[in-house]
């Protein structure tokens, strides 16, 4: 005995010896880690699980005793309380990652032989064994093996896995199986070796060698006692006569089952099972009474109940009764449930599906090493924050939603000049001898007739003619273009472009500049004046683009308009963005300049009827449904989606994105659109226009014929053709 080495069990100190697990030390002290049930000391069952240092369902047989450990037994009835976490833990659970040619799970004879054999072949081998503090909890695709260790989690990527986890011992299913004083044969050997006094012990089934006990013959009928074992009742094999034997401990050598949970979890992965884990063991006799699943407290009577209700497949029996869903994940009960079903249908069902995790792990352990999606910041992020912006996540980026007053931002665009950070737009450079041919095939608009220095709005359609994205085509040379895409769609658009270049085998180079170039939209009736002040005197006209220095920063200046006002997008190197932004803000101060966020931008473009892909469009929106046939040139020989558009053009027009106006406040987006007491669509975008003095909306009508008057939010609304504001586009072209 090591003096002074103690842990705490339910508030009482428990002495332990070197090498003791918490379970062994607890049993040595005459206690049970729970409130009864067979002890296996092999990690197979949940009968020794307790709350260890605040973590519930920890197998104490797999937990080395150490000073200061605080152990609480689970309640006899019900579940352990969830821990109350008021603050984030100060330290994260660390994840160590390793690579190996081969991972061997289990360091017994079979596992050791497999490891040695692989090492002789020159392969790198990692051996994982729970008794060495390496508890495998899952095998995922990869294969990646997830291991709980004392120092945190270990993730091992392996080329192959050998499962050598051996066999588990059967537990008894009979009345009295939840008493204190029941141990499996191998557990009895461990306890005896550790010097734990088993008292008067009897052995049922195969007696363990080296352990003082009285072997009993016959069939186990029941175990007697109040909370602790006082005797065991056996039936004579031939006469069925019952005989009761008084004892303190019942040692159970009832047979084994393959410990194959991890191998069943691995599906088609390169996993080999060796040793006892690969063996087929005879099933126990069909249980007739008692608890089959101690973890979920499922009795034979419960199984009979679900069977009578018609659940007659193993997976259904599991779901209906919850057998096998507890701490041990079927290790104890599965052989008995299979025997139960086999007795009724005449054949042995396969084991039920195994899924991670095979062991109870904490959420922190499960999440260790996992990172949430990373969101990008534009080079102006800190500047936005300094200007009071409320930042939020949109399309994979942090973007300013507003700077405190979106209506004031709106008016800055409509009446003065404003800056918007549009660095998030997708930007691809396309160059090559086949660039024109490629873009003609890619886009439904014509490309060859775009002159150098000019640009054109374009839809991006898939093969079904459905809208995927939109943006601009800017021609920089005979064989060189800059394409822009929406912020949220840029990643997919790049993949789409590269995929088609490769598919068609055309001579086209593609460079994604989305994160290399920042972009500032200078918009408003005074935008031209502001840009003259910072050196852009030769300004491009609407839909032209030029290379020029603006405030000393080399820019690609694109003249277009999403807001409905005169707009210049200044694309420039990310490292100069802050210089450019500050210069523009400084020179525009007396022009009433203010930055605008996404909320104002969404309102501005809505007044122009400009669609936001994914907000106003749906997954199956065609140009016709969107009212954007003008952007499709069906006279072209071919483009992606052309044949689908030609076919669907013959079908009835039963869905349409329309403009809606109504007096008063704007209904919330998503509001149903009513006609003749039926819902015929919904509102996609909605805003009360300050300049028009009424609500404007884009909404879907999904029932033909399309009415001119509908009802939204209990009020009449008129169906109109957008744009709502400056329909001739004179302000944008100014």
């Amino acid at each position: 005995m090591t003096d002074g080495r103690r842990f705490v069990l339910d508030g009482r100190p428990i002495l332990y010896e070197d090498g003791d697990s918490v379970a062994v030390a607890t049993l040595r002290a005459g206690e049970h880690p729970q409130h009864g049930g067979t002890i296996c000391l092999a990690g197979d069952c949940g009968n020794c699980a307790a709350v260890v240092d605040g973590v519930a369902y920890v197998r104490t047989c797999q937990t080395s005793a150490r000073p200061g450990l605080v152990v609480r037994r689970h309640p006899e009835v019900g579940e352990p309380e969830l821990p109350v976490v008021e603050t984030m833990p100060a330290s994260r659970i660390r994840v160590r990652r390793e690579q190996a040619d081969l991972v061997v799970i289990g360091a017994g004879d079979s596992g050791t032989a497999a490891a040695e054999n692989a090492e002789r072949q020159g392969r790198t081998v990692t051996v994982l064994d729970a008794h060495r503090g390496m508890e495998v909890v899952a095998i995922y695709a990869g294969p990646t093996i997830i291991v709980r260790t004392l120092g945190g989690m270990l993730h091992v990527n392996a080329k192959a896995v050998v499962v050598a986890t051996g066999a588990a011992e059967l537990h008894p299913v009979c009345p009295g199986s939840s008493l204190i004083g029941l141990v499996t044969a191998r557990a009895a050997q461990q306890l005896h070796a550790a010097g734990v006094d088993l008292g008067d012990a009897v052995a049922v089934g195969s007696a363990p060698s080296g352990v003082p006990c009285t072997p009993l013959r016959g069939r186990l009928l029941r175990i007697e006692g109040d909370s602790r074992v006082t005797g065991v009742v056996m039936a004579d094999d031939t006469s069925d006569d019952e005989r009761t034997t008084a004892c303190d401990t019942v040692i159970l050598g009832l047979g084994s089952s393959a410990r194959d949970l991890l191998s069943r979890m691995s599906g088609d992965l390169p996993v080999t099972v060796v040793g006892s884990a690969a063996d087929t063991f005879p099933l126990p006799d069909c249980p007739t009474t008692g608890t089959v699943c101690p973890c979920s407290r499922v009795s034979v009577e419960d199984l009979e109940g679900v069977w009578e209700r018609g659940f007659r497949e193993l997976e259904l029996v599991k779901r209906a009764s919850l057998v096998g869903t507890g701490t041990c994940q079927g290790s104890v009960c599965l052989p008995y449930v299979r025997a139960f079903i086999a007795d009724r249908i005449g054949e042995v069902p396969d084991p039920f599906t195994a899924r991670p995790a095979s062991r109870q792990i904490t959420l922190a352990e499960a999440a260790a090493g996992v990172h949430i999606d990373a969101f990008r910041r534009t080079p102006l992020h800190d500047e936005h924050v300094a200007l009071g912006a409320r930042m939020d996540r949109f399309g994979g980026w942090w973007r300013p939603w507003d700077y405190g007053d979106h209506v004031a931002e709106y008016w800055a665009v409509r009446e003065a000049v404003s800056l918007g950070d549009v660095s998030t737009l997708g930007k691809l450079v396309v160059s090559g001898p086949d660039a024109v041919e490629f873009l003609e095939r890619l886009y439904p608009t014509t490309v060859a007739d775009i002159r150098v220095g000019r640009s054109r709005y374009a839809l991006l359609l898939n093969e079904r003619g459905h809208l995927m994205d939109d943006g601009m085509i800017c021609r920089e040379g005979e064989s060189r273009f800059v394409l822009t895409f929406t912020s949220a769609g840029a990643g997919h658009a790049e993949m789409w472009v590269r995929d088609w270049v490769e598919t068609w085998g055309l001579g086209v180079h593609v460079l994604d500049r989305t994160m290399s170039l920042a972009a500032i939209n200078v918009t408003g009736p005074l935008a031209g004046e502001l840009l003259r002040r910072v050196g852009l005197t030769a300004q491009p006209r609407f839909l032209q683009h030029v290379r020029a220095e603006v405030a000393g920063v080399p820019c690609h200046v694109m003249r277009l308009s999403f807001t409905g006002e005169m707009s210049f997008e200044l694309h420039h190197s990310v490292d100069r963005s802050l210089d450019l932004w500050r210069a523009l803000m400084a020179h525009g101060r007396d022009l009433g300049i203010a930055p605008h966020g996404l909320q104002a931008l969404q309102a501005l473009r809505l007044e122009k009827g400009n669609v936001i892909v994914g907000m106003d469009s749906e997954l199956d929106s065609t140009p016709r449904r969107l009212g954007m046939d003008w952007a499709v040139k069906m006279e072209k020989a071919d483009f992606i989606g052309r044949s689908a558009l030609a076919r669907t053009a013959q079908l009835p027009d039963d869905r349409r994105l329309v403009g809606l106006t109504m007096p008063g406040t704007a209904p919330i987006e998503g509001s149903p659109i009513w006609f003749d007491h039926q819902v015929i669509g919904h509102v996609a975008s909605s805003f009360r226009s300050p300049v028009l003095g009424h609500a404007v909306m884009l909404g879907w009508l999904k029932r033909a014929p399309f009415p001119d008057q509908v009802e939204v939010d209990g009020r009449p609304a008129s169906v109109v053709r957008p744009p709502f504001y400056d329909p001739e586009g004179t302000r944008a072209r100014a």
Partner: protein
Amino acid sequence: MLALEVIRGLRVVAAPEALDAAPWGEDAVVLRFAADDAFVVAAIEIDLADEHAIIADETAFVGGWLTDDDLDEWVVPHIEWPLPDARPALAQGFIAGVPAKLWLTDGRTLLLCPAAYAHELSERLR
């Protein structure tokens, strides 16, 4: 916290054979992101045998040179994929959930990530 600085260079997309034959200069670190895509960490002007090549100044990467110890301490615990054994070698993938690249040479490694992710990478490699 790992200090990340802007890594300036030249981005060149061109025919693979043109990139193979390009006279980069002895001091240039040439990272072939793909067969047709190179990032050259050097201030150079380049003349390629591909009239359609896309050549652009690149300032969108941040990063820094790491010692082997730095690599083991800061980066390796956050990588789920195996590092290549060969040196020099370019490895690309997620580091702590952030898209990044490693240029591994004998004794030191250049860590690169897009500047737009710099804050995320710095935070996650603490």
